């Protein structure tokens, strides 16, 4: 598991993350929400040892991130918010292969994995293209492939569906959500799309670098006034469901879109 223990981090004179505690277990899907600048991406970088805490510690499977380096990056895969921050290769294929070479994965195995992931994410057609020649959403998919191909034990996903159309968004989301279950991977999923947090095992809300809520989605989102005050939206389905229930139009108050459409 990944464990944050009283973690503080600062870029300069003020704390970007303050006294932060969190556990992400294997097989668990944890959604991290919070307004712009609340510290989400900073936490992402602390989770895989790219940043080290100024105070407190982050442990991955019992080892502090300040003690292990390279090894950690293979174990904790981080997909950046901006795909351009991630590209290293001159072609998409090289880019995806890069991490595997660093892990000294055998050539045949590397080939097999690259093929598998490109089929899965439907990016096979750009393997020989330069990442710089792709559209925004295409880049995002390639960046995701580059991390998934390493088969990390934990995944830190920083707004990875922000540039995708609704169908691709749903496909990618469902895929990483299932990964937690099927492959027993611990996922920290950062998003501004609160409906993506509806099926999470746990929702964590940040504000000004501090954790202000943690719990199952129904509990966290039900606190409308807190969500409002920290600038986090409740999913539209939840908002509408709640209003229609109060109006007596529906007889049940539900969380997600499918359930809501069913009872209408």
């Amino acid at each position, binding site marked *: 598991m990944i464990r944050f223990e009283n973690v503080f981090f600062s870029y300069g004179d003020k704390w970007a993350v303050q006294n932060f505690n969190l556990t992400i277990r294997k097989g668990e899907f944890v959604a991290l929400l919070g307004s*712009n*600048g*609340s510290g989400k991406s900073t936490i992402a970088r602390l989770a895989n040892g790219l940043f080290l805490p100024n105070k407190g510690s982050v442990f991955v499977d019992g080892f502090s991130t300040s003690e292990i380096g390279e090894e950690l990056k293979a174990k904790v895969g981080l997909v950046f*918010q901006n795909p351009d921050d991630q590209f290293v290769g001159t072609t998409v294929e090289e880019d995806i292969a890069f991490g595997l070479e660093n892990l000294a994965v055998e050539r045949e195995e590397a080939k097999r994995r690259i093929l598998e992931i490109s089929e899965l994410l439907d990016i096979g057609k750009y393997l020989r293209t330069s990442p710089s020649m792709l559209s925004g959403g295409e880049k995002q998919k390639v960046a995701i492939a580059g991390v998934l191909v390493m088969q990390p034990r934990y995944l830190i996903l920083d*707004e990875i569906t922000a*540039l995708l159309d609704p*169908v691709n968004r749903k496909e990618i989301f469902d895929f990483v959500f299932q990964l937690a279950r099927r492959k027993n991977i611990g996922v920290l999923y950062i998003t*501004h799309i609160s409906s993506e947090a509806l099926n999470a095992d746990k929702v964590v809300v940040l504000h000004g670098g501090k954790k202000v809520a943690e719990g199952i989605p129904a509990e966290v989102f039900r606190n409308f006034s807190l969500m409002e005050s920290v600038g986090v939206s409740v999913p539209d389905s939840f*908002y509408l469901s709640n209003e*229609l229930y109060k109006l007596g139009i529906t007889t049940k108050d539900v969380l997600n879109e499918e359930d809501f459409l069913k009872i209408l």
Partner: protein
Amino acid sequence: MIVLENVSLTYDSGTIFQKAAIKNVSLSIRKGESVSIVGKIGSGKSTLVQFFNGLIKPDSGKVFVGGEDLGSKETNLKSVRRKVGLVFQYPEEQFFAETVFDEVAFGPKNMGLSGKELKDAVWQSLSDMGFNPSDVANLSPFGLSGGEKRRIAIASIIAMNPEVLVLDEPTSGLDYTGRNLLIEYLKNENKKGRTLVFVTHNMDEALEVSRRVIAMKDGKKVFDGNSEDFFTSEELVYGIGLDVPFVVKVWKKLKKRFPELPFCRSSKELVDFLYGGPAR
């Protein structure tokens, strides 16, 4: 205001990477309109909007802005870019200045603004984007979070007061407050007469912001018309590989029970109506 006539573009033409990104697209956007552009990833949206201010030239076909042919040598592209302000998909990658003030001031300064006029333009656009200007003016734009950078980038374009505002997925990465602020700002600017072109992957936003929608598929324009007609047609929307806005799905169900329910462009509008509020 903006007219495209049979425009086509192929990237890396003649190489094995050749990619036909725009295929024979014609369209016309009138002054004061608000148009949302939707389409799957790679369908040509970003390429299309870069024709609008002459950043990309088509291989064939013509582009006119305010009646001027952008392919003609006489046309001053600089003045076209002033008229048509374009916010890129990842605008923050283009940052260059040491302070937020200089970043936002760059455009208006080039237009000849200085002194108090310049400061006012910068201050106004920063506060339009929800900042307290004096808090951020002296910060480095590079040291901001993703969503903060995005709003600075938008401020730097609106500071030039362009007649046409073109935004390529400006809400991706914005938080709840920032998104609402931007959507309200855009709707309001359009009401005041500013022409608006809005690229988005969020179908609910497209419906809320614009009465007109253009849908792209594989480089072709496959729909251009009323956004209500578009988003209420499952056949059209699913055919292009997109999704029906959530509010439309809900509205359709409710309409069966409440025949008098008018079409609603946002969940807020829907709730207001049901409460007998402003929409009624």
